[in-house]
């Protein structure tokens, strides 16, 4: 690590660097503040490695093109913010249904609607889980530093490929636009997962075959395995079905290929949690305020810890219970009017007090606001 | 195949001049009665009145000797139910 080049990187650029490290070869997107630098970075960098960048006519087309590229065999990504993510919802559902690996970056700004384009927010957290209609199981990760943005984007690609599913990376305006001196991982330093390809003969091939881990091998177009990929509910071959006995297994697969393996997905940063009586629970930029607050309050002698959710969805119910096992109370801090706190309430046993601290005026929670909140809790 | 329309050619009359030698070869066309949906297109569009509808409205090759292999019926069949035995 000592000899690596130290570079100043913006959060949005970190997405580009992480993605390319993970194998990104295709980006389709539509500019939107505060995510635009991701697109601009891809426009600059992808041609250098023979990759492809296209600015589509809108966000609907962007994710559509990304899906098209992914089924054609390229690792693909798009980046946007709330309004654009809202427009991607329908085709994101298509990606869930067709089990297409891809990564969507959402650099959150204030909402609802056009809201506050240049102000920070974490109010798209629930949307990442429940935005598209129908049943599916969302994977969402959320870094909080520039270095973590690189590694979490890499992890997002790995999860997408491993589980054949879209993965959302939630950033926020502060993270997207802040810069930090980091060192980049060397080639080979972080393991890269590529989708499993079929090894059977084309005749035997079933595009959505039930396998032991429920993930079906995925060929690229043009590789001799011909199948139809449809957003209609389909059987294991990919043909549309209206039959209950074929519908239910497909739905089961969509859910359980992820839920049954969620241990592989969950990730959390725990600081000073060993003896913590009170824990901050947070994610994204707020986690940095929480770490700072923890540091401040620890120095004053209070047993406070900080949990940063790096995996937001599926929500780490069990892991959270485990981590908070010794806590008397938690403080859930978010830049919204209360979103992830509902999950925390659901997940934690009733004897742990759940306090909430929210800010929704376009500014980030400060360490001192978190510290002050503790006055009610300690 | 029992679903082939040619099996049903009860009304086929011989006698007129035709291009195909049925003693040495199959009928001019093969009709897949399972796929045919009785849309009537082939029957209506054939310039030589080769077809007649059966009870279900599906075509039977009533006048095979008329068929000039003009392609019209099979390029217009929406259900891929007609192929030629010669072309």
């Amino acid at each position, binding site marked *: 690590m000592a000899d690596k080049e*130290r*570079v*100043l990187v913006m959060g949005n650029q970190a997405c580009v660097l992480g993605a390319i490290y993970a194998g990104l070869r295709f980006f389709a997107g539509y500019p939107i*503040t*505060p995510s*635009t630098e991701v697109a601009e970075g891809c426009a600059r960098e992808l041609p250098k490695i023979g990759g492809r960048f296209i600015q589509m006519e809108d966000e609907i087309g962007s994710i559509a093109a990304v899906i098209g590229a992914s089924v054609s065999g390229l690792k693909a990504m798009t980046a946007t913010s709330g309004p654009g993510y809202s427009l991607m919802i329908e085709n994101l559902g298509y990606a869930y249904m067709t089990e297409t690996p891809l990564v969507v970056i959402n650099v959150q700004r204030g909402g609802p609607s056009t809201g506050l*384009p*240049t102000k920070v927010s974490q109010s798209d957290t629930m949307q990442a889980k429940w935005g598209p209609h129908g049943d599916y199981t969302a994977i969402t990760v959320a870094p909080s530093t*520039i270095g973590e943005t690189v590694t979490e984007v890499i992890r997002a690609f790995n999860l997408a490929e491993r589980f054949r599913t879209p993965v959302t990376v939630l950033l926020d305006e*502060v*993270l997207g*636009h*802040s*810069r*930090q*001196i980091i060192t980049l991982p060397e080639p080979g330093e972080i393991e890269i997962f590529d989708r499993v390809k079929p090894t059977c003969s084309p005749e035997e091939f079933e595009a959505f075959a039930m396998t032991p881990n429920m993930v079906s091998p995925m060929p690229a177009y043009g590789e001799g395995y011909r199948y139809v990929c449809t957003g209609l509910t389909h059987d294991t071959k990919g043909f549309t079905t209206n039959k209950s006995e074929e519908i239910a297994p497909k739905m089961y697969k969509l859910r359980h290929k992820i839920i049954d393996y969620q241990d592989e997905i969950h990730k959390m940063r725990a600081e000073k949690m060993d003896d913590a009586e009170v824990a901050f629970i947070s994610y994204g*930029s707020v986690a*940095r*305020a929480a*770490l*700072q607050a923890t*540091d*401040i*309050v620890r*120095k*004053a*002698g209070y047993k406070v810890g900080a949990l940063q959710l790096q995996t937001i969805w599926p929500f780490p119910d069990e892991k959270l219970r485990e981590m908070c096992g010794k806590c008397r109370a938690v403080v859930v801090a978010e830049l919204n009017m209360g979103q992830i706190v509902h999950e925390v309430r659901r997940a934690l046993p009733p004897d742990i007090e759940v306090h909430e601290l929210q800010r929704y005026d376009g500014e*980030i929670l*400060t*360490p*001192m606001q978190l*510290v*002050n909140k*503790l*006055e*009610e*809790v*300690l | 195949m029992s679903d082939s329309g040619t099996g049903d050619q009860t009304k086929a009359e011989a006698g007129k001049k035709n291009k195909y030698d049925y003693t040495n070869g199959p009928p001019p066309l093969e009709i897949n009665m399972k796929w045919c949906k009785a849309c009537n297109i082939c029957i209506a569009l054939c310039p030589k009145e080769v077809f007649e509808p059966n009870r279900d409205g599906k075509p039977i090759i009533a006048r095979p000797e008329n068929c000039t292999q003009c392609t019209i019926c099979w390029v217009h069949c929406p259900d891929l139910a007609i192929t030629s035995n010669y072309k």
Partner: protein
Amino acid sequence: MAVSLKGKVAIPEDRFEMRLSGSGGQGMILASVIFAEAIGKTDKRNVVQTQSYGPEARGGASKSDVVISENEIYYPKAIKLDLLLTMTQESLDKYYADLKEGGTLIVDTSLVTEFPTDKYFGLPFTELAKKEAGHVMVANVIALAAIAELTGSVTREALTDAVLSRAPKGTEEKNKKAIEIGFAEAAKLKAKKG
């Protein structure tokens, strides 16, 4: 369950926090990026830079924070400033309260007329840029050099490298000149203030 933490908690001391502030066109973001890069090149300290924007991406930011620390930098924005550069009256009025007691205030005296304190380093960056360096655009670079000189947080070489790597073609000379002026003027000032 209601304790008072007042007096018991202190803001962290392992962070050096600075804010460059001014109006949209004055290049405060660029300046802070250059400064952060210069530090990154100089040594192994951690650096985080943040800013605030106007509507959508358009309209420059009026402030940009740089936090420097030997340790992991948790909170990315400034909590209590060790150094504040203000290039306009408005930014001075707005951000002065965020300066730590004993923190360094650096003011562009070309545009600021009212001062909330007399403990400040004043230099006419804009005037110097126009008259001495040949273009108003390099006022931010003069200010950076002054900060470097006044704080010793970054070497002249590192700053020069960082500035030149970002400078548009054809502006190299002006920028070098600006760095020179900034270091020189700040040195004079330092000497004067003692």
